[in-house]
Structure formats: C-alpha cells, structure tokens
C-alpha cells in the first residue's frame, strides 16, 4: 500500500520558469480544446455520445467542487445540486438575454467569448452568494445537522422554481398596479421566479431554448483549468489548513486556523465551482436546451456525493475519476436497458421494474465499496505518474520476492 504522503514535491526550478511552464500548458490545452471544439462533430457523429462526453466533463467539475467541502473540509453537504441549479438558471438567463442582443442567430464561436465568461461569472456570483448564505449555519452545525440544512436548501431551490406559477392576469401585468410597498416587492420576486418556467423548465425569454454557446472548447478547457485550480487549492497552505481542521478543530484553532473563516470560505469556493458547472451544463452544446428543476433533485445531489466517495474523499484525481465513472455508468445502464435482450425480458415480465433494479445494483456497488474500501478508490491519495510508478514497482518487488521464495 502506498504511503499516505500528500506533500507536493517542491519545484526545484525558479518561479518564473514554473510560471512560463504554466502559461505554455494553458496555451497547449486551449489549442487542443479549440481543435476538439472544431472537429468533434466529425470525429463523433453521434450527438448523444458527444453530449455524454460534455456531461462527464461538467460532472467532473461538480465532483471537484463538492470535494472541497465534503472531502477536504470534512463537512457533509448533501445539497450540492441546489448550487448547480442556481448556476444553471443564472447562466441560462444571462446567456439567452445576451443571445437576443446578438440578434438570436446561431451561436457563433466568436460571440461565445463574450457570452460564456459573462454568464459563468453571473453563475459563480449567484451560487457563491448562496454558498455564503448556507455556509454561515455550518459554523454551528456538524455532521447530520449540516447535511439536513444543505438538503433543505437544495429542495427549497428546486421546489420554489418548480412550483412557481403565473396566472394569465399577471402575465398581462394587471395585478401590478394594485400592490404597493413590500407587497409589490414580493410580487415582483414571485413573478420573476415564475418567469423561470416552473415545472416545464426555462428555455429563454421567448421559449426558443437556451443558446448552446458552451462547446467542447469551453467545457473541456475550463474543466482542465479548474481541475488544476482544485489541485493547487489542495496542495496549498489553505488546503492543508482545511484538512487539519477536518482532523481536529480544537488543535487547528490552537495553531491559529480560524474554523469559522476556513469553513465558510470552503463552502463558498465549493458552491462557486458548482455554479460554474451548472452554467456550463445549461449552455452545453448538444445538451438539453431547457433548464429543468427536476434535473437538480435529491438524486443528482446524491450522484455528486457518489462521485466524490467513489473516487476517494479529498482526492482531486479521485473526484475527477468518480465524475467520469458515474456519468458513464448511468449512461451504460441506460444503454443496457435498450438492448433487445433486456427489452424482450421486459416484455415477458412486465412486473420487473428495471429502473428500480438499477438503483439496487447501484446501492449494492456502493455498499460493497464502503465495506471493502471505505476510503474510496484512491482514499486521499492522488493518481499521478509518480504514484502509478510506485505501485508498479511495489508489484514488481512482490513478484520478485515470490520468485525467490520458490526457486
């Protein structure tokens, strides 16, 4: 078993060289992302596969952001979908408004440079504020109690948007003049929430669908860059302090790490990440052109937790792996359900609810993981070339020893 080391090897070269290297890497990634952006339609003609790929990248972002709060800070949030939803709606509104300004034609790559950053900024801001709002109680609450607050928050977001309705009267603006003062303020809020489309979802101000500005360039590029940010957060003094806080709050405070400040900051950073992921999902090319409240139900919060726990709480690469794995496994199960054999089985036994079966399989896998490997696939370790080499070496040594034992 590899040792639990998590100190990042310090760069032996000067900082300016490290910065040059950073810039070079970013440039290469952006060029690669651009190439993929322009050619993906031809390389993968099946739009559902493209969608799956993009969704996996977005889910990696969801997992990375949840990992900050659930993995590194050791708090248990089970309402991550709430922040993703806020990000998704914020970006959907911003991008479709901007899109109308541009004449509502086909989303062009050039325009995306204005639309995507602006929308994501709005998403990050909204989700970050919500994170601050939910994070403040986390000073007093721990474990299950915090989980309940976060779950409640996510459900409030989903249900508020999902159930808000507007009568024909109000759309025409008749009720406006009759309400005054504080009443009109709440009225305005409820009208604008109802404007999000309720249960049917939001599809832009004129129901034309949210413009799909976020192509592979944005999604893959941002996933990579934010992945690096997550990595560096973990291997910074801040990440170290956060992990120390998770281990022992009293001892952390005794060495000057203020639990309150660090917890709230981690919550805000986590929700900003979720907001960006939500924004990308909303504007995703080949994705769903409407943002629906039901996509952000408890199930999706739970999926996010699964990604983090599966990969290993606290591990950045683990969260990324978890994000990809969960996205693909959900799709894979759907595909299996579509095959002829399963379809005919379904016809022959109508009482068999395959969807429920999926949840059973899923749960069994999770339980098995908790029993066999409670720390997740990677634990808190990171998957790097160095650790892989270490594993291979250890395996080789084991084999050598065996060979010696049996001459």
């Amino acid at each position, binding site marked *: 078993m590899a*040792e*639990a*080391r*998590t*100190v990042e090897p*310090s*760069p032996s070269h000067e*900082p*300016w060289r*490290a*910065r040059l290297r*950073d810039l070079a890497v970013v440039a290469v990634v952006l060029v690669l992302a651009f190439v993929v952006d322009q050619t993906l339609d031809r390389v993968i003609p099946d739009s559902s596969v493209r969608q799956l790929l993009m969704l996996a990248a977005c889910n990696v972002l969801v997992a990375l952001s949840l990992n900050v709060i659930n993995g590194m800070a050791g708090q248990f949030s089970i309402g991550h979908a709430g922040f993703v939803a806020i990000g998704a709606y914020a970006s959907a509104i911003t991008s479709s408004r901007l899109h109308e300004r541009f004449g509502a034609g086909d989303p062009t790559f050039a325009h995306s440079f204005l639309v995507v950053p602006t929308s994501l900024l709005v998403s990050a801001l909204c989700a970050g504020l919500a994170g601050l709002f939910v994070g403040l109680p986390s000073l007093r609450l721990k474990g299950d109690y915090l989980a309940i607050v976060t779950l409640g928050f996510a459900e409030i977001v989903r249900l508020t948007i999902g159930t808000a309705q507007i009568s024909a009267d109000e759309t025409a603006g008749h009720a406006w003049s009759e309400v005054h003062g504080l009443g009109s303020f709440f009225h305005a809020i409820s009208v604008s929430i109802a404007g999000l489309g309720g249960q049917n979802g939001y599809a832009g101000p004129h129901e034309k669908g949210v413009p799909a500005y976020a192509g592979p360039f944005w999604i893959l590029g941002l996933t990579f860059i934010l992945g690096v*940010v997550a990595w*560096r*957060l973990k291997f*910074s*003094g*801040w990440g*170290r*302090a956060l*992990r*120390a806080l*998770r*281990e*022992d709050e*009293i*001892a*952390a*405070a*005794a*060495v*000057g*790490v*203020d*639990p*309150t*400040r660090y917890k709230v*900051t981690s919550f805000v950073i986590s929700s900003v990440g979720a907001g960006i992921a939500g924004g990308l999902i909303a504007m995703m090319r080949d994705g769903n052109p409407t943002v629906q409240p039901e996509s952000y139900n408890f199930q999706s919060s739970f999926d996010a937790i699964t990604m983090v726990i599966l990969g290993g709480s606290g591990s950045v690469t683990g969260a990324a792996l978890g994000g990809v794995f969960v996205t693909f496994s959900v799709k894979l199960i759907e595909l299996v359900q579509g095959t002829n054999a399963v379809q005919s089985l379904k016809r022959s036994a109508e009482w068999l609810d395959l969807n429920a079966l999926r949840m059973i399989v899923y749960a069994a896998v999770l339980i098995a993981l908790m029993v066999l490997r409670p720390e997740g696939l990677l634990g*808190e370790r990171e998957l790097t070339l160095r650790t892989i080499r270490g594993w291979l070496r250890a395996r080789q040594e084991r084999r050598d020893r065996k060979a010696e034992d049996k001459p």
Partner: protein
Amino acid sequence: MELVLEHVCKSFGGLKAVTDVSFKVPHKAIYGLIGPNGAGKTTVFNLITGVYKHDTGRIVFNGHDLRPLRPAQIARAGVARTFQNIRLFSQLTVLENLLVACELQKKASLFSSILRLGAHHEDERSMKKRAEELLEVFSLRDVADEPSTSLPYGNQRRLEICRAMMLEPKLLLLDEPAAGMNYGEAEGLKDQIRWLRDTFALTVVLVEHNMQVVMGVCEEIHVLDHGETIAEGSPEKVQADPKVIAAYLGEEPEEEAAG
C-alpha cells in the same frame, strides 16, 4: 509578556472546576501548574487558550484581556499550547503538521497560491526551512514525511511541542509533555524546555505529573486541588507544604484523629 490570572472562576453546571485562581507568570519564567487528577489544571489551560470562557475574573496576557478573543485569535496573540491527550492532525505528515501552524504568518494570498506566484513558493520555502530546523532540534527530522500518528508516543508529544513552536509564540502552555516518557526522555525534555525558553525568549507554563520534570525545571510552582489554589512558591517550598502532601498522599490518620 507576562501572563496574569485574577480571581478566575469556571463552573460546568454545578461542578466548580476552577475557583478563584490567581497567579502571575513573569516574562521568561518556567512556571509549573500541578495538582492531583481533576484539580482543574487542564481547565486553566483551556481558559487561557479560549476553548472555554471563564465565568468571572480576568486573564490578561501581554496587557490584553483574552476573554473576548476566539481560540484562533489567542493563538495569533502569541499563546501556543500542547494537549494532554495528543491532538495531532492524524492524516497529515509530520512536516505538514508543522506547516499548518504557519498559516497565519503567510504572506501569500489564496489567489497567489492558486497561480503559484513567487510569494507562494517563498512562503513554502521559508516555512519548510523553519519546520526542518525545529524538527532537527527535536530529532524528528528523519521522520518528517511519515504520517504523524505512526510515531511512537513520546515523539508525538515532542511533535506537538514543535507544532506549537511554529507559531513563534511568546507563551507556551505544555500539558503533561512528559507523559509516557521514560527517565532518559524526560531528562532530555527538561533540557529542551530550557533551551526553548532561552532561545526564543519564551514564557512557559507547564502542567505535569512527572515530579522529576516539574521540580527540575520549574522556577515557581502553583498547586491546585479541586479547582482551588492550595500552595504556590518555589519547588522546595511547595514540596514541604503539608497541604500539598496531604492533597497528593492523603492526610495521615493521626492528624485526622487530632483534627
């Protein structure tokens, strides 16, 4: 840099843990706080470091009243401590345990840490250097990259002292640093405490059951029993005090009969 406690009281519900305790620790002193189990020694530490808040009285360090400060702020004011039941960050390595204690001396912002600007590397380098120097002094340098909880008990205690020292404190509170140490280790600890005081111009307060350490290193001793002060003064004076002897060994039967 002196620490002053004035008529400090603390009760938990009906239990009076600390009653009217006053003492003064002069700058650069090594001060002992002793007493039988449950005397309230650790509670006094918890009051000084802000883990608990005293009900009445005053705790003043370096001219500042500590009551309104949160534990992290008290640490920032230069008060560092170790814990009776070792509290290391178990998932972190020995070195990382020390680096956490440098958080508040860092110059680099979170932003420059993400961009890995020069300030971040400078911070990491200077912090690591200081940590390694301390580890060297406490002969823990070789295990710097081991998980902290893999160390033997005595080394874990020494690591806690190292971690506290990373704060560059002016006042160091040691809660039973010699627990679990053998004779030789405890002798070494005495030297290390004196060395720390002289090198860093520290004020040290020591809670300890090991009399070899307490009597050997403390200049003044304060004895608590059931949360109350029963004696204070030089080691010789305290050792001869009948009340102290009674508190530790129980009163002799003849005296009981006579009293």
